[in-house]
């Protein structure tokens, strides 16, 4: 590790202590605009919005912390852009969304993105099926992944490519207890999504 790297880490640790990121409460029953896009959702229970955006066109909601329940909204990822913020553009660049992608290409795009950003060890996709999302023909799929923390998470995603841009909502949580506990709440969020 070289000195510039070290000093950046030191600086990062000094400036952004883990407790400093303020989250915002998203009240139940109120339509909220998400991911700096025209997409709105109306939650039926209170959620916390994590103030640090995970990507240019992404927004993260959670109930108990992102490791326990992680809902990410993608509001119009453009052609040539990554889904999430680059963690190391030089050495481990993220894959880019392309507007010519087929519905079946979305799951591998998410897999590669999560493998690089979260160092997950395995990612298995199932139940890839057509879905209507934001009044457009899209795709939904489920995934099961093993994190670097050796916890197995279950996930679900629904996505549509509208006007060459990717709109998607993903939800993942530890497969034990947490995932089933709030699946219905997330399904309601997805059903309430409007563009």
């Amino acid at each position, binding site marked *: *590790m070289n000195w510039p790297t070290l000093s950046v880490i030191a600086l990062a640790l000094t400036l952004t202590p883990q407790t400093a990121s303020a989250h915002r409460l998203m009240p139940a029953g109120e339509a909220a605009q998400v991911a700096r896009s025209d997409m709105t959702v109306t939650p039926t229970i209170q959620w916390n919005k994590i103030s640090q955006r995970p990507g240019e066109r992404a927004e993260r909601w959670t109930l108990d912390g992102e490791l326990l329940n992680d809902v990410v909204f993608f509001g119009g990822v453009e052609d040539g852009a990554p889904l999430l913020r680059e963690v190391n553009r030089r050495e481990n660049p993220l894959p880019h969304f392309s507007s010519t992608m087929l519905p079946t290409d979305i799951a591998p795009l998410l897999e590669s993105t999560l493998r690089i950003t979260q160092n997950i060890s395995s990612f298995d996709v199932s139940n890839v099926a057509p879905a209507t999302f934001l009044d457009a023909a899209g795709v939904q799929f489920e995934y099961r992944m093993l994190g670097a923390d050796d916890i197995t998470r279950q996930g679900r995603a629904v996505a549509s490519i509208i006007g060459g841009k990717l709109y998607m909502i993903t939800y993942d949580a530890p497969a034990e207890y947490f995932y089933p506990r709030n699946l219905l709440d997330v399904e309601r969020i997805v059903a309430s999504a409007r563009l």
Partner: protein
Amino acid sequence: MKPALLAAAMAATLALPPATAWAQTDGEFPVPTYEGAYQPQDSDERGLWSQDDESERQLRDADAVIRDPALNEYVRSVLCRAVGDKRCEAVRIYIVRVPIFNASMSPNGTMRVYSGLLLRVRSEAELASVLGHEFAHFELRHTLERYRSRRTGSDIAAWATVLGAAAVTWGGGSSYSSRDMQVSIYGNIMHFERNQERFADTLGFGYMAASGYRPSAAAEVWRAVMNETDQTALDRGRRSNRYDNVAFFASHPTNLERADTLSALANRVVAAGDYEGRQRHETALAPHMAMFLADELARNDFGGTDFIIQRLANENVTAPLLFARGELYRQRGHPRDLASATNFYHQALALDPSLGDAWRGLGLAQLRSGNTMEGANALRTFLERVPDAPDAPMLRMMIGDQ
């Protein structure tokens, strides 16, 4: 920054000796008499062992460990042949599912072998050279030496470890407990000194000479990993003349001469064997190749992955390799890539007509190229063969068969 650090954290135990530093006379690669079962001697060493024991307990139960008995037995047999049965008894091997070139060994005898290493070596001899090198660090108790020199040296190194480890957190960076687990699974941050690398290589060549494996395989492995790094850089449009981002070069800036040095060194091993073990290696890896290749594809490293596939295919072109290459090109998705992918899928099917997934890839590549009719036909063939594929409903919808 995180992945670079993580790479360093996950890896870092393999490295090469400096190109100079070698002034051996012929045949001087002695293997000392093995001391047999060893117990930690003083408080430093007992401390390291107890940390290691705790790590190993977590690793033992980790889901990221590949437990297939046949594969584990194979890797173990290569290590045992390389270092001898007596030494081998001191080791517990854990094959960890991480698509990066690395292996490491900790003081209490825990050896971590990454799946990415297994994918990148082509024969028993190549695998033996890496495992032998790692074992040599263990036998020479380099971790302890390093720990002591670090503790008595400047505090900077210690802080680098603390800060580096703190930066390696999961996802959004809000988890510390997961870091402990990560270290347990992937191994600790460990950089060896240059002279330690030299001693480990001397002993490593000693093992190779005694075991009958072809010693020059060592140089080929190192060279291939450097070439892979070059290809990664080239594909991303930047220069590469340092390899400090590669897991096992993490502690040393290095250059291509090193591989040549190793090569020259290998030639000096007297009474060297020529056992390669290519067939046995391929047979042992075959059931896992599809998974290892799929993990590799998700790294989003077109140049590096293409290099790995071609290096393996140079020895033996197989349908899974051609299929993986098709997937790699289809994934990048430029129009020319889709044409190449189509070609690779056809070649894969020519070698192994039963490879159903190649029909899927072929169909999707055609569809994305705008060849709707051919694409739909290929996907229909796929769905006939694999009617309950995970994405069957979506594919049926895409070709209008729902």
